[in-house]
């Protein structure tokens, strides 16, 4: 594994809440609250967590679709956390995104060729013919028939639209792509096609992915390392097999025990299923101490007052939990 292409340190993305006659800020939704991770060149980091835990916000914040509240983001050796949007222009070709909803991520009034070619319009001064050549090349790469180039997105199925979105992301030969639940809106047979396409492209083009998903088995298939998010924070980050075989954080354990097992012979007994009680606290008002302390089956007195530090407990394995602070 080579050096880190993406370094995120203590990333914070808080959305202000305004209320009252004068629109005063009365609080903030801490969608992402202190997240740190590295992504090595050529690897896939899976980012999992339940709905609303901030994983999509995290992915968008890393690409600076938001103006972040705090922390630093370094991509390909350049710190982009706090530079103004206009100064990001030159970095844009390096980092791209594949979106969750292939319907909403394609402008319905533009043809496929216009959509895929738009990055080229912005960043190259090629002639029309050169652009069209590149567009055809990209369509071949993602498995779209060239004859579809002048149709509109509504004429395509969900899987085909996602291929258009992938082709657009690839147009400028990026190094880093955030895949924001790229398969969540697709049916299962198409999911496999799209994931395989992403893997093939990674091998051919040496891409680095941040793969955001709530589908634990799909993440296990595609990711090299996996980060688990809960209420705006990463609670555990570990290599894939280590995480799936031996989850350390109580939340990860609960999450993994909820994954359906297709083989009845290997299905766990009902007792081994960890059922969490209560609801996720509001990210506008997270609990004191550990964010998970309100629902943790192994909660201790200390957890309710003191937030655990996200630390490396064994080489390559990071956990934010008081249970493992003595392991070292």
């Amino acid at each position, binding site marked *: 594994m080579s050096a880190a292409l993406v370094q995120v340190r203590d990333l914070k993305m808080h959305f202000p809440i305004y209320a009252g006659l004068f629109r005063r800020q009365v609080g903030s939704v801490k969608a992402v609250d202190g997240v740190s991770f590295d992504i090595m060149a050529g690897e896939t980091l899976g980012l999992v967590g339940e709905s609303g835990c901030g994983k999509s916000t995290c992915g*968008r914040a890393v690409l600076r679709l938001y103006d972040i509240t705090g922390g630093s983001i370094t991509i390909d050796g350049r710190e982009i956390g706090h530079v103004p949007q206009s100064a990001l222009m030159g970095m*844009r070709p390096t980092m791209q*995104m594949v979106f969750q909803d292939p319907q909403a*991520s*394609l402008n*319905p*009034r533009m043809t496929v060729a216009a959509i895929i070619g738009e*990055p080229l319009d912005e960043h190259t001064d090629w002639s029309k013919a050169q652009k069209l050549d590149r567009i055809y090349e990209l369509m071949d790469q993602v498995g779209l028939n060239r004859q579809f180039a002048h149709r509109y997105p509504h004429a395509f199925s969900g899987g085909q639209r996602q291929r258009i979105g992938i082709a*657009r992301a690839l147009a*400028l030969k990026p190094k880093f792509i955030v895949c924001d639940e790229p398969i969540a809106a697709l049916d299962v047979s198409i999911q496999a096609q799209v994931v395989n396409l992403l893997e093939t492209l990674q091998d051919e083009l040496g891409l680095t992915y941040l793969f955001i998903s709530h589908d634990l088995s799909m993440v296990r298939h595609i990711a090299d390392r996996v980060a688990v998010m809960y209420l705006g924070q990463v609670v555990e980050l570990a290599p894939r097999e280590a995480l799936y075989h031996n989850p350390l954080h109580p939340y990860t354990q609960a999450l993994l025990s909820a994954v359906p097992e297709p083989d009845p012979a290997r299905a766990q007994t009902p007792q081994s299923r960890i059922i969490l009680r209560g609801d996720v606290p509001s990210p506008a008002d997270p609990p004191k101490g550990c964010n998970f302390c309100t629902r943790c089956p192994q909660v201790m007195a200390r957890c309710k007052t003191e937030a655990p530090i996200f630390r490396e407990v064994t080489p390559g394995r990071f956990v934010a939990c008081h249970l493992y602070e003595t392991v070292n």
Partner: protein
Amino acid sequence: MNRFLDSDVFYAFRTSPVAIVSLIVTVLMVLAAVFAPLIATTNPFDPASLNLMNGFTAPMEPNAFTGESFFLGTDDQGRDVFSTILYGLRISLFVGVAAVMLAMVIGIFLGLLSGYVGGWTETIIMRAADVQLTFPSILVAMLIFGVAKGVTPVEYRDQMAIWVLILAIGLSDWVQFARVVRGATLVEKSKDYVAAARLIGRSPLTIMIRHILPNVLSPVLVIATISLALAIIAEATLSFLGVGAPATQPSLGTLIRIGQGFLFSGEWWILLFPACTLLVLALAVNLLGDWLRDALNPRLR
């Protein structure tokens, strides 16, 4: 073209007699206005072609002095009412269309800007719109008209009247375009294709014009059609009140104002025919706009 003939909108059009009739009437009116010099029997604004002796000729009846007969009669100056209506229609439609275009351009621009940029820009623009909305638009138009007339030199007033009228009606009508465009922009801007364009590095202006604008145009089309009817009526109102098109370039409203002076002395045709033309035109455009709104609204399908 085939795509259009297959579309839901065309189907809705084909099956709506009201829409077909309104469109035919509107198109006929527009054609009559455009080709007025070819259709009109006389040029009512060429003093040389007028004969004062022809004044007050009733429709289809020969004049007592000259023996000439006019399809819709003549006014006090001996001008052929049919011809003045055609020329008046021309001015009414031109002012209406131009005013709506102006309102549309201003409204779309400010609506896109406030919806996309947000923050203080949005607050200022939308509060200004709210304030303007509290005044009846005809009052706003009269105010603008009065100010503009005050600053133009006397010798240009009649020439400039039409343009001032367009400005006045256009400026009094941008608010609804801005509101609708802002609302639609707020919806579109949260969609991922806008995020994708930002990731590509597109500038806010490019995103507004290339991505958001084409997706907010269909409600604008509806409002533009309904506004056209309102603008034509607003122009007629202003002209009727005597602050609009001058008597040397009479619009339908001016003709009605001139005609109403003769209503009680028995020369009803001078008023009735321009008024009916205005009524039919406004009704047809309005019905067309209503139909378009229903046809483009997916919730009513």
